[in-house]
């Protein structure tokens, strides 16, 4: 039996190290986000996740969402009530501007509340995540009328949002979008087409659903420069804000998926009866541009799903490993059988799970902190530098955190042995739920392309090189510690940074002359950056832990665990980073050698 307990102490420590909240609340923009208020918010959110969302996770998976004959969708038992509770708590409003009823909290705090949602119930957590994305899109480019009509109701959670990008022929390549938007004399548009994979495209939680839809105008240029973004509400909204007639959009089926069963993944049909009424967001033909700005946050959000599901999988595995008695201690074969947590290989699996989860979380927090500074710092150069860092990190947070979540949830099943393969134990659900995270909001390869192309080669590697410099300076500062574990980790971290430098150089010097070679190693580049940057943030945390132990802090065990976790991570994960660097530099010829016809 395992109940989700949010790692609040860990959260707190991150808010004192890699994402120092005390610094953020000095900025006028975040003046209300004082450490004591944030602690109370995290504690209350943790309670909700533990008592309401976690208990619904398994039943939601078993039951799934169902489409009814009248095109409506029924979500699993208890989910609507949970959503009402979430709304009443004000959960949906956290990061949103106060102007529209939000709380304006920093991303560094919302990162933690989002993680708790995904840890306790990923199928539920998708809804707030998607609605946040839709709100961002309207905030970013919507007209004042659109903002006034939709934002407050979406921020309060009364209405929810969706993102309609994918079509059967347009997945990663959105240039192929075919959905049509036809301008009308009154300034609105009529939308016709089919959208697939629409998370919470239809459900029974809210009276209205605000769809953000990518579509093509009749005279639009070919390709990515001819795509527009429109708001298409399920229920039309009258001038006074009340709900009017049903719009010409419906859910025509739900997908049968490997995981996240609680959440309905809809096929949406627009315009079967004369056209769905839509309203343009921003300017015509600039939809993809808006979508990409917003996509950064959505990708970051999926990275957090990776962290969240990994944390939950780890907690369940530890709980099982403590209880399950099986086989004798290898060093005490005459003694009775012991809980499996005493077996070295189980320890290895658990630490592998834990250290990667902590590293990915700390990296997400360092990124969130940079996002906050890029939004709210008074100095323009500081804002720019942090924006560049966050932009570089986002494909890594998304790509690496979700890939490591595969490894973590895999081991989460493995720790359980045969019990992990049967659904009743709960470990299998995390393994299945995690699987989508490397796919949606851009597959790992799409993240990798973004990293080596847009975020690295296009700017001549300026930000990547600056990061290498920052990491080197930090690694040098670790030398001041007398702790042998930290010393050992320092050497490994430096080797990792060397490997990053080698790989970045390879990418920059070949991107124009031998671009296929660079793309052959793009996913290993995500892994390399993930592991090494993960070690860097874990080491920052461990160094502060070491300092606190030195001052005689009473919570010694917690801080010692930080150092031990770093040691394990640099000893056993770093070699995988070095191997990834080798693959990048030396693996392209082999990867591209086999003729297409020979597959």
């Amino acid at each position, binding site marked *: 039996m395992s109940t989700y307990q949010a790692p609040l102490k860990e959260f707190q420590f991150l808010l004192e190290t890699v994402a120092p909240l005390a610094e953020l609340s000095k900025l006028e923009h975040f003046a209300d986000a004082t450490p004591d*208020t944030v602690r109370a*918010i995290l504690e209350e959110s943790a309670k909700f996740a533990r008592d309401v969302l976690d208990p619904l996770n398994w039943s939601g998976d078993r039951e799934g969402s169902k489409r009814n004959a009248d095109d409506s969708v029924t979500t699993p038992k208890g989910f609507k009530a949970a959503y009402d509770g979430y709304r009443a*708590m004000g959960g949906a409003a956290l990061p949103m501007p106060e102007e529209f009823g939000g709380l304006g909290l920093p991303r560094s705090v919302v990162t933690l509340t989002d993680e708790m949602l995904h840890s306790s119930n990923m199928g539920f957590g998708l809804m707030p995540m998607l609605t946040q994305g839709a709100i961002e899109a309207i905030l970013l480019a919507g007209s004042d009328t659109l903002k006034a009509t939709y934002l407050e109701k979406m921020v309060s959670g009364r209405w929810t949002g969706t993102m309609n990008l994918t079509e059967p022929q347009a997945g990663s390549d959105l240039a192929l979008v075919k959905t049509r938007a036809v301008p009308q004399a009154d300034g609105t548009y009529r939308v016709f087409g089919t959208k697939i994979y629409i998370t919470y495209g239809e459900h029974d939680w809210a009276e209205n659903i605000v769809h953000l839809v990518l579509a093509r105008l009749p005279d639009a240029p070919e390709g990515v420069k001819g795509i527009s973004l429109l708001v298409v509400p399920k229920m039309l909204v009258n001038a006074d804000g009340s709900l009017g007639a049903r719009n010409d959009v419906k859910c025509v089926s739900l997908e049968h998926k490997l995981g996240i069963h609680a959440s309905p993944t809809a096929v949406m049909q627009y315009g079967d009866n004369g056209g769905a009424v839509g309203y343009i967001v921003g300017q015509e033909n600039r939809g993809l541009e808006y979508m990409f700005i917003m996509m950064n946050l959505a990708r970051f959000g999926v990275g957090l799903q990776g962290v969240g599901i990994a944390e939950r999988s780890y907690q369940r595995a530890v709980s099982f490993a403590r209880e399950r008695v099986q086989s004798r201690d290898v060093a005490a074969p005459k003694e009775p059988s012991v809980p499996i947590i005493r077996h070295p290989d189980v320890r290895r699996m658990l630490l592998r799970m834990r250290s990667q989860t902590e590293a990915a979380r700390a990296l997400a927090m360092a990124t969130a902190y940079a996002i906050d500074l890029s939004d709210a710092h008074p100095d323009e150069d500081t804002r720019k530098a942090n924006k560049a860092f966050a932009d570089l990190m986002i494909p890594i947070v998304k790509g690496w955190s979700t890939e490591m979540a595969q490894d973590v949830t895999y081991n989460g099943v493995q720790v359980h042995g045969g019990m992990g393969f049967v659904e009743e134990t709960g470990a299998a659900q995390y393994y299945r739920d995690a699987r989508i995270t490397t796919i949606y909001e851009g597959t790992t390869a799409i993240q990798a392309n973004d990293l080596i192309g847009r975020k690295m080669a296009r700017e001549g590697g300026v930000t990547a090189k600056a990061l290498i410099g920052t990491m080197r300076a930090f690694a040098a500062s670790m030398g001041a510690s007398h702790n042998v574990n930290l010393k050992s980790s320092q050497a490994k971290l430096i080797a990792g940074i060397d490997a990053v430098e080698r790989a970045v150089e390879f990418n920059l010097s070949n991107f124009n002359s031998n671009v296929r070679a660079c793309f052959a190693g793009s996913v290993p580049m995500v892994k390399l950056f993930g592991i090494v940057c993960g070690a860097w943030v874990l080491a920052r945390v461990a160094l502060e832990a070491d300092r606190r132990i030195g001052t005689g802090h*009473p919570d010694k065990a917690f801080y010692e665990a930080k150092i031990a976790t770093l040691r394990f991570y640099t000893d056993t994960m770093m070699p995988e980073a070095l191997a990834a660097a080798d693959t990048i530099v030396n693996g392209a010829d082999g990867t591209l050698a086999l003729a297409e016809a020979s597959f």
Partner: protein
Amino acid sequence: MKVLVPVKRVVDYNVKVRVKSDNSGVDIANVKMSMNPFCEIAVEEAVRLKEKGVVTEIIAVSAGITQCQETLRNAMAIGADRAILIETDVDLQPLAVAKLLKAVVDKEQPRLVILGKQAIDDDANQTGQMLAALLGWGQATFASKVEVAGDVATVTREMDGGLETISLKLPAIITTDLRLNEPRYATLPNIMKAKKKELAIVKPADLGVDVAPRLTTLRVDEPPKRQGGVKVADVAALIDKLKNEAKVI
């Protein structure tokens, strides 16, 4: 009508507590602390009375160390209007708390005091009763239903044998049982607003109360570990064990 709700900061109910190695008490360093669940129910009840229009102002009060401010902020996030912390490092016992509360009642003149029936750390179940005695007010303990109309509170109490409904004249003391209500989650906007509500800090000396402990704790031990069971051969062996080993018959 004003209502006073005393709240206590205790070890969170999810924490598995450990006895200190010198057996002087329970180790509460670095463990998560929260509002006593029965006190949460008391705050919730006061807020519901306010929502019904019976109560106009809710004052939360706590006695103890500086960190009790967090507990009071929590009470204000649920709906208390303002708070008073009686700040002291002294280990407070129920009689001292009751005296402190009496001093606050004398000053604030509430018509109703709603307290948790007991705190989950020491399980004393005394403060409400002592406060009623010190004030000379009526008391309804272990409440599972509360209705207030005019100057009379009608309270259903949970007893060993069932339920008892009594009515009592205000001012009065009510202590809450588990089934009185299910406390709401503090909304996140209200957590932020609570930060801006008034929290006054006074010292026991300001209230003229001597809080020196009257009782001495001699020793604290963990409950004995449960022994594994054994299978007995027959009834005679069972009776023998009950008589000579367990010594229960």
